[in-house]
């Protein structure tokens, strides 16, 4: 399946780096979550906010699958956050903004193209040597591992299952006994 933002080689670097950050990230599709964020505007509606009120995993319709349309203001915010301001005056009312796409391109370049072939210790050393990018990547890796699967990660709820978390439980919810007992 083609990626929304990453070239194949770059995707492989991100996938390998995420696996070092969170073992199991590859199987959970964490790189797909990040690709979905950076390429959010390649679909309509953009993949920013999943719909509601239910996912269908515990009853009800699969509303999460239909992403919520953005307003003009929402789009301005999220395009700027993802693409950067790029000299567009409307996006620079408080100054230039470096977007996530640029930060990822720079981060991938810093980890270098042979990252996937290096041994784990070398991979970890490279991640440690770029703490700002690694911090960003880890934030997104956590979201991709434990966020709703509709965003591309947490494939088949594997992240939640690994920690015995039921995830979104509406409209089923929990019984009073499940709340109050050990």
């Amino acid at each position, binding site marked *: 399946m083609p990626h929304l933002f990453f070239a194949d080689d770059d995707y492989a670097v991100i996938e390998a780096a995420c696996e070092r950050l*969170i073992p199991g990230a590859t199987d959970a599709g964490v790189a797909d979550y990040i690709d979905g964020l950076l390429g959010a505007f390649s679909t309509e509606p953009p993949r920013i906010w999943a719909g509601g009120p239910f996912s269908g995993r515990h009853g009800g319709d699969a509303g999460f699958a239909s992403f919520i349309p953005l307003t003009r203001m929402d789009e301005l915010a999220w395009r700027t956050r993802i693409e950067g301001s790029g000299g567009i005056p409307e996006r620079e009312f408080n100054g230039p903004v470096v977007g996530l796409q640029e930060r990822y391109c720079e981060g991938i370049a810093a980890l270098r193209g042979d990252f996937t072939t290096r041994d784990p210790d070398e991979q970890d050393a490279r991640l440690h040597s770029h703490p700002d990018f690694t911090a960003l990547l*880890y*934030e997104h890796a956590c979201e991709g591992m434990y966020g709703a699967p509709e965003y591309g990660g947490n494939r088949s709820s594997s992240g939640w299952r690994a920690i015995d978390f039921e995830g979104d439980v509406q409209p089923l919810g929990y019984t009073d006994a*499940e709340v109050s007992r050990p």
Partner: protein
Amino acid sequence: MGSGPGGSAAADVLTAAGWSVVIFEKGRNHLLDLADPSRLKGDYSNDEIKFTVRHFLGPDPFLEPRTFRRNQSDGDHAFVGDVNNVPSTVGGGGVHADGKLPRFREDDFHMHSEHGPIDAAALADWPLTYDDLEPFYAEAERLVGVAGDAGANPFAAPRSGPYPMPPGAPMYGATLSAGAAQRLGYHPYPAPTGANSVPYGGRPACNNCGFCAFYGCPIHAKGDPLAPLQRALLTGRAELRPETFVSKINVNNGMATGVDYVDTHGATHTETARHVVLAAGAVETPRLLLLSGLEHPLIGRHLMFHFQTLAMAGLRERVHPHRGRSVTHVHDDHLVPDERSQRAAHDAGLPWFRGGMVEHCGASAPIQEAKLYPWGNAHARSMRESPLRERMWGFTMQGEDLPQWTNRVDLDPTVRDVRGFPVARITYDSHRFELAASAHYGERLTEILHGMDAEWTVTTTSPDASFPYGDFISPIPQSKHVMGTARMGADPSTSVVDPYGRLHDVPNIVVADSSVFVTSSGYGPTLTLVALALRAARALAGGETPPAIE
């Protein structure tokens, strides 16, 4: 202005009295179908990414930043971005709150005369009493739908009747902490909660999904402002305009004539009005007054947050904090100074101090938890063992924050919002009162945790000036309880609004949010601000007496 708990309550009262109302809301509408207000949008969900990472309820800190500094030595500002943002959406802060809705106690309305002054603080009595507000508290509880046990809290003020609903199911962790607190002589009780324990007001009972604090309720079991907004809109006399930013209240000869607003396309319009009700929250309300050129010297002054003391314990067993209404038990003992607290206050050079309501709580969100652990091979084991979620429980005390003249909201000199208007700048630093009280009560809360067979305990506060900006704990208060920036009083020289929320200088502008609070108490502000909004709106409509219970 504003469709949150205060604005929606006022709209409900005014439309019921036959008034025509336009509700301006700068945020988006994710709540109800404007063409048929009886239908819901269905946008709320159990989705951690959407609600806690991607600003779904707004405001987006890129479009609408705020700035922060501790004092003038920080320069124009020390931080730009998300500064204590409360939802900017139809329903306002009522959408994301987990719905703890306590009343204030009697002494909360006269702290100055009851306990005496504190150096460098602007303590004052409210221009009304608990008895004045009690009927409106009762009305607010019916309006929002509050579940509670009227006889369970020995520190509670007298009530004219029971809660509309009984309490919901206690969370397992709360049964442990409540037991430990009782063994030390404290008095935990079921938190008065705006979440249905039984079907109420046409909404279903809460089913304990756990996505409560910071989320919109997918089944509308939570007492968000849906009911009053629906009722107002269904009269046909209210119009709700989301995504409209009111940029100025027009004033002529000491009376408001209407507002200028920017619509969703960026076009500016003027709306005329006989009265203006301002319920934009204790940051945006003074911002709009200042943008409008109003010049009362106390506008924006006396900004208060609750000073949070967090005392948490690592437990040997799992307590599943993700099941239930986020907080089901609280205790109020630390709102009442006792011999031990008096000694600590004197040791700190203070005549007295007190804390606030203590929420028995845990952490429920796995993404938030994951980000707390280091990356690497140990990550998966940390998440499975879950010392910071599944096996953590403790307390958040919403400590009283004293009003200080120097703590304020004003207009930032350089930073603008997306529409080109100056953003709110918050200048805020803690008083010795909050720091000393927190240190004292943090120790006492930790004593309770030791009675829960804790493996470890930790105490921290929010704000904490020693932490960097941008972290969860930082110099910026985390508490979403924001108050005090258009202080209420009888004397125009010491207050911004009169006892009914009317601006002394422009009496047909009524403030119907927590801006009017004189002191912060140690209780969440929502029920009190709704009660005040009901009282102010009823006075505006020509009668102060609430309707009889049907």
